[in-house]
């Protein structure tokens, strides 16, 4: 039955619909695959027993003719989404054995649509990282290998690795500066961060509230559209949730892009970028032309300020969002001499070095005397970046860029060099700062046989165009490579 794990979500749903196999069967196959892939360390918590119960319940619903958008599909959930009664860690020790008495809106939507949850996927601690190495539950190993073990990207490294290794049909992820798209690029999977406000943030452990956005990591563009269609939707419990209907995303994936104007931002050519990335980008441009798109050079002049601005805004919000982890009401606590000592010991023990670094940066940039120079200026940059995009949309309908400046790198290589690590987000943070949808599509293998992705950035709420362009890219790239199953 192991061939059931090679299916896409779309074909699995079709297979169950036509009675070729049950949810129980495909779930069992995925659980077996998950167990074989323990070396990837993709999961923090597995919920196989509940998954089998959910699968049986799904089969029973299907027998009664009740079929949701994700009916019976075994999927993974990034361990940043609170799941009722199931340990939720954010890959941090500070949450201890926290079991939320509530379910995040996004995962609740998916459960209502028939999801079978296999477990909670590993990530960088509090989603802070680009390599999944900051997880306090150990790093995730990229299914793609190049002699040495590689990082899967981050922060949604567990989600990306699990989908790439065919141990989940798809997975939820979140993206604050590139945390969906970069790991998708590193693992040969598709990842979309929708427009800010499409997916409710309610019940997702917050990193940087004004940037955080949930989205799926999937095997194909269409799978990602199916997943997003279930995840997204207005939620009155999130004040920043947008009260708009989903688009016709699943159908948009196959739409022609003839006449679509694709912008190529000149500022996305950066110093030191491998020639392979540049030539892949050039190749992408040719593919879009061949599909009938018109290529338009555009300028986003404030791009170079995006990364610095991001690394002010995100830590600032994080320093405040993470203040609630004080050991008082839930999670881990280390008792001290007095209240302040208890706070200090708890937070020193509970947060890893990268999280501590960002809390300190964030605290610093919000401090009296520094606020104007850092936080306020960063917000101004953010406004400029949004204006850059608005100006670009005068001349084009979507942008094509590389997703990352590099292929996946070896575990440990950048861990002690935060600045180099932060550069991973250089092509992805702009979409977060401006709240725009962005998708990474696997486009080619580099000379070492490692996957590289290309990114489409669209207008706010124009996921339909993003999916159409991504679909065209996927078709042209015809990326069929799979990692060798060395972990089995």
């Amino acid at each position: 039955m192991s061939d059931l794990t090679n299916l896409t979500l779309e074909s699995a749903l079709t297979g169950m619909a036509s009675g070729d196999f049950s949810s129980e069967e495909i779930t069992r196959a995925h659980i077996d695959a998950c167990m074989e892939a323990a070396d990837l360390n993709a999961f923090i918590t597995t919920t196989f027993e509940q998954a089998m119960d959910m699968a049986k319940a799904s089969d029973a619903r299907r027998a009664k003719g009740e079929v949701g958008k994700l009916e019976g599909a075994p999927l993974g959930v990034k361990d940043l989404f609170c799941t009722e009664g199931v340990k939720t860690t954010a890959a941090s020790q500070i949450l201890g054995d926290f079991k939320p008495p509530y379910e995040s809106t996004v995962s609740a939507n998916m459960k209502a649509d028939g999801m079978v949850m296999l477990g909670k996927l590993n990530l960088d601690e509090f989603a802070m990282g680009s390599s999944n190495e900051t997880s306090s539950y150990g790093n995730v190993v990229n299914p793609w290998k190049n002699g040495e073990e590689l990082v899967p990207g981050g922060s949604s490294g567990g989600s990306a690795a699990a989908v790439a290794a065919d141990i989940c049909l798809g997975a939820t992820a979140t993206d604050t500066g590139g945390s969906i798209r970069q790991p998708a690029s590193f693992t040969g999977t598709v990842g979309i961060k929708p427009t800010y406000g499409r997916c409710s943030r309610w019940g997702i452990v917050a990193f940087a509230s004004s940037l955080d956005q949930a989205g799926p990591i999937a095997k194909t563009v269409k799978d990602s559209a199916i997943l997003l269609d279930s995840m997204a939707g207005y939620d009155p419990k999130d004040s920043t949730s947008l009260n708009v209907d989903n688009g016709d995303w699943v159908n948009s994936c196959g739409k022609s892009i003839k006449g679509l104007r694709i912008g190529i931002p000149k500022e996305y050519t950066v110093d030191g970028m491998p020639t392979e990335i540049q030539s892949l980008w050039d190749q992408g441009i040719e593919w879009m032309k061949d599909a009938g798109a018109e290529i338009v050079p555009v300028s986003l002049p404030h791009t170079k300020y995006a990364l610095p601005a991001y690394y002010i805004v995100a830590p600032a919000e994080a320093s405040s969002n993470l203040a609630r982890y004080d050991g008082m009401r839930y999670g881990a606590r280390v008792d001290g001499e007095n209240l302040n000592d208890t706070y200090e010991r708890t937070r020193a023990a509970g947060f890893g070095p990268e999280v501590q670094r960002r809390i300190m940066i964030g605290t610093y940039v919000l401090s009296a005397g520094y606020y104007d120079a850092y936080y306020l200026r960063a917000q101004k940059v953010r406004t400029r970046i949004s204006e850059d995009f608005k100006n670009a949309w005068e001349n084009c309908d979507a942008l094509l860029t590389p997703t990352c400046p590099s292929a996946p790198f070896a575990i440990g290589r950048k861990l002690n060099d935060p600045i180099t690590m932060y550069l991973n987000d250089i092509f992805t943070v702009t979409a977060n700062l401006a709240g725009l949808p962005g998708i990474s599509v696997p486009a080619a293998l580099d000379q070492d046989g490692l996957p590289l992705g290309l990114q489409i950035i669209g207008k706010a709420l124009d996921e339909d165009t993003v999916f159409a362009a991504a679909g065209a890219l996927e078709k042209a790239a015809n990326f069929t490579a799979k990692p060798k199953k060395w972990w089995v």
Partner: protein
Amino acid sequence: MFTAERVADEKDWMKGETGDWELIIGLEVHAQVSSNAKLFSGAATEYGAEPNTQVSLVDAGMPGMLPVINEFCVEQAVRTGLGLNAQINLFSRFDRKNYFYVDLPQGYQISQFEHPIVGEGEIEIHPEDGDAVKVGIERLHLEQDAGKSVHDLSDDETYVDLNRSGVALMEIVSKPDMRSPEEASAYVDKLRGIVRALGTCDGDMEKGNLRADVNVSVRRPGGELGTRCEIKNVNSLRFIRQAINHEARRQIEIIEAGGTIDQETRLYDSVKNETRSMRSKEDAHDYRYFPDPDLLPLQLEQSFVDNIKATLPELPDARKARFVEEFGIPAYDAGVLTADKVTGDYYETTAKGRDGKIAANWVMGELFGALNKAGIDLADSPVSAENLGGLLDRIADNTISGKIAKTVFEKMFEGGGSADEIIEREGLKQVTDTGAIEAMVQEALDANPAQVEKAKQNPKLLGFFVGQVMKASGGKANPQAVNQILRAKLGL
């Protein structure tokens, strides 16, 4: 708009060793918004509930929980702003004020720092011992309350009750326009009257639903401003006066001894009647305010504000002026009768269509006296305004005398019921039957022949016979009729 130019009346100056001092006072009043739900969560706000029973996931700062603004609280803030004659800001924003404490589950308080919902305004206060004073309002903003730390349940542990966590507060900041403890307490009293009239805060200082942070500094009359100290969380009008007095005295002593005042936050100890240092300016928190990214800026429509304005109830000052005009009562009485909404409503119901002065005398005299004696609030008065009005009607139409009316009132206070019922039941109806009165008059005259002669000489002695007749009738004889008949019989 700060009226630093205004110099206090000489009577308000404080005497020091080296001369006179003037007090400069500004207040930050925290008023709990009257609302059934908290500012950013649906949790209830019932006072006195079991600890930690009015707490939502949001109030407890659980992971991934998000605030959603309670629109009713916004409406209440706007209503209050209008009552303070203040600028309503159609654009306002919520900021996070970051600090760590056990009763602050999120690690930050959601407040409004840069862009408050209400801007500058002005109210007039009437200190008991002086002229009316205008006090400027600097701003009003919405914010969440923190939970409550309970230190006295255990020797070495602190308990936390999160019932208050997230409750909506309005912080109303005055300009430093007050010059004496009496002005400061008159200001808080006026503010309380306004929010009560508006129904935006119950003004209950005992429950802590209205409390003040008091900023005090001293200067030579009309001179350079001094350094101020802030006294936190003072929760009664008397304590406000005492704390200011004590704090001003303390500052004067330091300055006169050659010292300087450190800007600091102090606590008022009402038991010892002193203020104590809580933290100095150097120890002040850096709150790292920044816009709350979980909340969109508050953008109000002018029509929203206009609708609230259109349904604004009459405020104490306007009502007072109207009572003077409409019911012809003295300004002092009108002030007492409009101190709060319940009193104003009671009086108005009693006085409507009747003699306003008599009504005021009855409400402020008999009624307040009886309520005071019994320790009952006006809201729970056993005598309804309608029944008191009915009693006044029976006096006016001579059914009973003023004296009998007091008896009826007592019965009414004891057991309720209308004046008519009580008069009927107790047989207190005035005797107006001239035949019966004439008989009683004749009887009195016959019994006191010597007095009759004297009275004929000196009509002032008529009162003796009136008294006799009234006594004989059990107080029920109509005094006018008795007078008239007496005069006729005595040929006066």
